[in-house]
């Protein structure tokens, strides 16, 4: 089942089932009993517009637009407190991250900081096979534009300088895996398989 591209409906009747079947951890989502242990456990629930409990209910009510536009997706710290406390065994962390990944894939998140950071991160992975904290951060900062990037860099200059001084920020050429070609081939293949599965799913 493919998710509907119709954005006019506030409540999309097929959305809940689509999430159950297509989002990482979504297969367990139907077991949610809305106890709220997840939201109560969240370290930065106060920063979220909805929190995980309500987000799950919004999925059930078919509120696709509101779910993908929720900042809850981008404020997960991956502390897994909700996951280990869920009495119904729902991997809440994975569900929130899975929804975030879908939001990116469906084009909801181009302006979201976390999505920018994730893209910078993935750029580093695909280019070098390893993460260069300096380059990821720089690329992330400059994804806001050149001026904003300079400003953000200056904001954190003290931290960066401290790291450099202690030898904890790499300053030479980026570390790379030596078989970078092989790694890229693997990632390309994996992406290809994922696309193939998606199309297969739409046909069935």
């Amino acid at each position, binding site marked *: 089942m493919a998710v509907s591209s119709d954005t006019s409906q506030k409540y999309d009747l097929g959305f809940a*089932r689509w999430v159950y079947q297509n989002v990482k951890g979504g297969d367990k989502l139907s077991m949610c009993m809305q106890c709220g242990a997840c939201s109560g456990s969240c370290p930065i629930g106060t920063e979220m517009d909805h929190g995980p409990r309500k987000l799950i*209910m919004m999925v*059930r009510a078919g509120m696709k637009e509101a779910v993908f536009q929720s900042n809850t997706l981008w404020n997960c710290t991956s502390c897994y407190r909700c996951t280990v406390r869920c009495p119904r065994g729902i991997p809440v962390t994975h569900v929130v991250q899975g929804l975030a990944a879908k939001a990116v894939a469906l084009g909801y998140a181009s302006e979201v900081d976390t999505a920018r950071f994730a893209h910078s991160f993935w750029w580093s992975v695909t280019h070098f096979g390893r993460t260069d904290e300096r380059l990821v951060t720089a690329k992330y900062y400059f994804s806001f534009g050149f001026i904003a990037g300079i400003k953000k860099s200056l904001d954190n200059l003290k931290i960066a300088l401290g790291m450099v001084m202690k030898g904890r920020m790499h300053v030479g050429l980026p570390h790379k895996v030596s078989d970078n070609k092989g790694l890229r081939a693997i990632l390309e293949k994996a992406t290809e398989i994922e696309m193939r599965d998606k199309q297969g799913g739409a046909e069935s």
Partner: protein
Amino acid sequence: MNNQILNPGVYLCGGCGIGESISLDALEQVAGKEYKVPVCRQHAFLCGDEGRALIEADLAAGNVNQPIVAACSPRVMTDQFTFEGTPAIRANLREQVVWAQPAGEEDTQMLANDYLRMAITQAAGTVPTVAAPEGEYSHTILVLGGGSTGLNAALAAANTGYEVLLVERDNQLGGWANKWSKTLPHLPPYRDPQPNTINELITTVEAEPAITVLTGSLVTKTEGGPGKFNVTLSQDGSSRVEHVGAIVVATGWRPYDANNLVHLGYGLNTDVVTGIELEELLTNESLQRRSDNKPAKTVMFVQCAGSRDPDHLPYCSSVCCEVSIKQALQIMQTDPAASVYVLFDELRTPGTAEEFYRQAQKAGVVFIKGKVKSVSADLGVTYDDVMLGQEVTLQGLDMVVLATGMVPNSTNPEIEPAENGAEQLLDDVNPNTPLSLAIKIIDNDAKEVVPPTAEQAQASEPVSAALPGGPLLNLQYVQGPHIPMLVDGFSDSHYICFPYETRRTGIYTCGPVRRPMDMAEASEDAAGAILKAIQSIEGAARGAAMHPRVGDLSFPKIGLDTCTKCRRCTIECPFGAIEEDENSFPILIESRCRRCGTCMGACPVRTISFDNYSPNMVLGMIDAVEVPDEFDEKPRILIFACENDAYPALDMAGLNRYQYSAFIRVIPVRCLGSVPLLWVATALEKGFDGIMLMGCKSGDDYQCHYVKGSALAKERLSKIGETLKSLMLEEERVTMAEISIADSHSIPDVIDGFVETIEGIGFNPFKGF
């Protein structure tokens, strides 16, 4: 006072701390010196073989024919202290004296002495009871209703060895179950809808030689009582009379009328269906909607449609949640791509139904907690989503299913309402509810006509509105033709304390006419009701009482020589056991009698009594208490305690070693309804400073084992004020306390509080007269 009775023997037990707490020698003085009881023995362990041998030897030698055991409560050691088939008279020295009072005190000894005096007097007023069954008793059970419950009831009875007459108003057996595509899971692992096995059940019943099936039949009249019911049946315009021993009513339920649910879209769109209508649409193919036969891809179940709603059914029908889960799973099983929503307020999945619920969750059924507001003609469902805290309108559904509730068939809506008895059907407990007999009397005797008050007239309006149809059994009883309802139209007596029992002896209900339930529960319920019916039949044939005085052979004897035909016994008997002969004298329908003594409490001229329980016996016990004069500063409080709950609670208070005033004297009674005001007046004249009636709760949530005994006692007591005033006594001297069997912890507060009140008022001025 009759201080000399023939051949009593007093046996004093010193065990369980009695000997250490009080003087058995002093008790021996009471028996020997005061009452001249010729045989009085002490033993340290009376319930043991040696102790019993002591009593048996005296009985065998002919020295004693009425043993009086002063030991533990009459509620315990009943087998040990029953001799030659007759229970000994007991004085409760353990639970209600030594366990509730300090050892070695003068007041403790005085309490024990009085209980022995009361027991000796009780023995003097007791005549051995003899069973007196008369005439021919039927052992056949009539089962009314041939649906799933009735079929199971009939089968349970047949399997136990009883003949069954199974009466069904439709032309075929099976009832609603004939419509079910599948049934709820009743077998492990309780996760999938099960095949409907109603046809197998019908086949089994039809093949059972002990069961006679009468379809297309109605009961038009029921007379008699347990063991001796005469039931008139009509079938195809002809009628016949059947003699049956007991009746099990399994008339089931009908769905709430969805035409009342226009706000939920019913009638506005053919794709708004009830759960029952959906059953016929569920097949092995994927679900199609009624309007255009297109597949229903998105379906929403709306739970509590017209249930738990003061404007419709105020109660929960308990099965709709599981039924919707079943139907949702069936839809998903035939079409895995379907989106099925269940909109619920509170999902009720008790016991193994939780497994079923989880199965539906796993299958991807979307459960939404919310309160439905409306369903529009274009299938838009608007609800308050409780978990989101906002109103939501879902558009684009293919079908909406209303989970409607169950209405009990406690009347038959297909026949004419009866002309009288409707009030009794709705409110059998209230002593002020007019009886059909009273109405008849008023009709026959024009000068007694009392026009109904405006209140009564208004009250009678909803009675007829709430009661479509006529009586199921058309009982020819004083109280009217119906089986009374308990709450919300369901026929029962008390769900918890005495399930299956109606307020008519020998008639039991089971299945959804008793309370909402599913087929598996109803099947067990059917077996339970059948067991009660069998008890009733066998008890009636032996002349023995039903619950709660199971096996009691005594019954009320009415002395017609002094009867004033006042009709109080006839009207007040909770079970319609007393009817009238052609001269308007009361006659007892023995097998309907539960032996509660309400008639005895009602009789103003003391002409009703039991061999082992009578007005004079208790008057003797009251008189046996030594009431000290006021200079001793020892008040005396008399407590009439109901043997069903209050007396056991007093025993348990002792068992827990709760201490309370030693100034009370307790007389166990069968029911507060059996207490005549004469006893109260006599006790006050004798010099008792206060009187307490301790019994079960009355009112809508009554716990009285005889339905309205407590209510009657309350009613009678409300009229004692005049008597007290004429005696120049304070009204507070007479009171009533509601004590349930679980209330032993509150016994000290209740007793000591009352003693304190009495001490505040001062001593009874009649003391010493």
